[in-house]
């Protein structure tokens, strides 16, 4: 049971994020919702690569007595997560700067009022 908790957390985070995007009105909260989804997905990737009692996958400076590569955690999901975090920072910065500009033009952060483009 205990090993499923991270996956439950992942699903919960994705759903909380989707809820925030779909039903919150503040643009900043929508951005936060996207960030929560991203954290959930990153948690998912990290959980995939976890190995109980594993060490960091670096071939030098191993703790004495470890057998490699059996006791190392998987490096690939970590690389994927790092890439995803880097991309996430860029997307977050872009979204926040857009929100700043939108506030300047529309005078509101309510997503229901930011819809000059419809139909």
């Amino acid at each position, binding site marked *: 049971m205990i090993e499923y908790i991270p996956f439950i957390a992942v699903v919960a985070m994705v759903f909380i994020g989707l809820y925030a995007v779909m039903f919150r009105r503040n643009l900043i909260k929508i951005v936060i919702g996207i960030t929560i989804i991203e954290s959930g997905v990153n948690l998912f990737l990290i959980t995939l690569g976890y190995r109980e009692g594993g060490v960091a996958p670096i071939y030098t400076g191993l703790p004495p007595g470890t057998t490699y590569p059996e006791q190392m955690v998987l490096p690939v999901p970590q690389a994927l997560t790092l890439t995803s975090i880097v991309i996430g920072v860029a*997307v977050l910065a872009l979204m926040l700067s857009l929100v700043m500009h939108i506030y300047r033009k529309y005078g509101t952060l309510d997503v229901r009022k930011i819809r000059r483009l419809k139909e």
Partner: protein
Amino acid sequence: MTLEEILIQHSPALVIAIPLLSAFLMPLISRINAKLRNVFAIAMLGLTGCFIWLLATDVLTSGPRVYIFGAKNLTIPVVRILFEVDSIGIFMAIITIMLAIIAVIYSWSFMNEQDGLDKYYTLLLLLVTSALGMEFTGDIFNFFVFLEISCIASCALIAFWVTEGEALEAAFKYIVVSAIGALFVLFAIGVLYAQYDALNIATLAQALQYTFLDKIVLILLLVVLGMKAGLAPMHMWLPDAYGRAPPSVTLIIISATLASFYGVLRVIFTLYGNVLTTSMRFDFPLHVIIGWVLIVLAIVSILIGVIMALIQSDFMRLIGYTAVAEVGYMFLAIGTTVAALGAPYATVALQGGILHLLNDAIDIGLLFLVAGAIYYVTKKRSLDDIGGLARTMKYTTVFFIVALLAVAGMPPLNGFTSKFLIYESVYQLNPILSIVAILCSILLLAIFIKVLYAAFLGPELPALKDVKEAPKSMLLAMGLFAGLAILIGLFPNLFIDTLVKPAADALLNHAQYITMVIGGI
């Protein structure tokens, strides 16, 4: 090895490296001279085009080509980052580079009064890089990375006219939709990695079992990539983004959208190619279910795109809805192919769909360039405010008429050839679908006749008396597209035999794609 062989061997990497390097050289070069910057952008994209041409001649004659990054000797390719270029990938790359070169030629005059052009060109080249990367990569995680790069770059470009609130709004909507979509793609990639311990598309395709988790992955990838390609009812970001981005940018966003469509093709035909016919449920093979789901969504896209386009008064937004309808035609062809996999008309439908990719890029691109030319000379977006432009903008009018006939599928232009193949093959699957498609094509003609009347015909409006013809570089860009439209319309077999048939074969014959990587060990 001769020099040419070395160049061909390294061209998959160079095709990505050259636009990427020139993207980051752009801020430094634009400090020297504005004209030099424009020439540099055109020259670098031209150079990339030359490499794609070299690669295309090689791939079309001697089969797919694998390029493995960072390995001195090409052992154990499945754990390396690799590019796998086959006929469909090279076909997409040709479309992308064609759109990019024409967009840069067009921006020479169109953007010359704007600020921040160094960033504009940087983002433009990054967007081209990402689209090319999506088309060449043989690694599903790399596909996600390039998808995200394309999403960031195109979002920043949509918001390029930052003084307009609507542009910001469109960009925000686009990035929310793309970011969430890309995160779901990453989730799907994580599930695939957890099951099969691989990120390589060929390895995954060989190992795929169609378990319960694979079903989830299939749905996530189909829906997200469909959304990024503009499939209804998730198409709403598309008219917003297309309608508010500068038209030269829209051309490149079209190529990014088509790259997402290519992702759908890759997922269905290569990744799930092995299980399409083998996994059964209630006597239905998987391919019938996928095919009919795609057909239903495609018909919805065509109907919504056409009906909504009819009531638009903003020219660029109208073309955006038309683009939704055109994407619907492509998905209709693909859905027919998948639903009737194995039947002789399935191949014809796939050829029609692939040719329609090229035709959609040309027709919608040309329409956007015409809309941009009108915006450039009149500074008006709404069709209600313009009229009688045919008196002053003769060449633009001619190009618009070419685009109108092409996009509505009138003979002898290019839109007809692909739609002909689609209608004939869809008719054999279900006549009603074909009839709906033809009726919507007629409605498309009606929509653009309205535009022709409202913008170009009618009395000369006093407010637009001193309007001049668009500048030469814009006319050149439009002329290139119009020439291509007529060329494909008159010599369809030239393109179908050399480009489209190998591409369709590459998709249907996914075993070759897999053995190129797996068999290489």
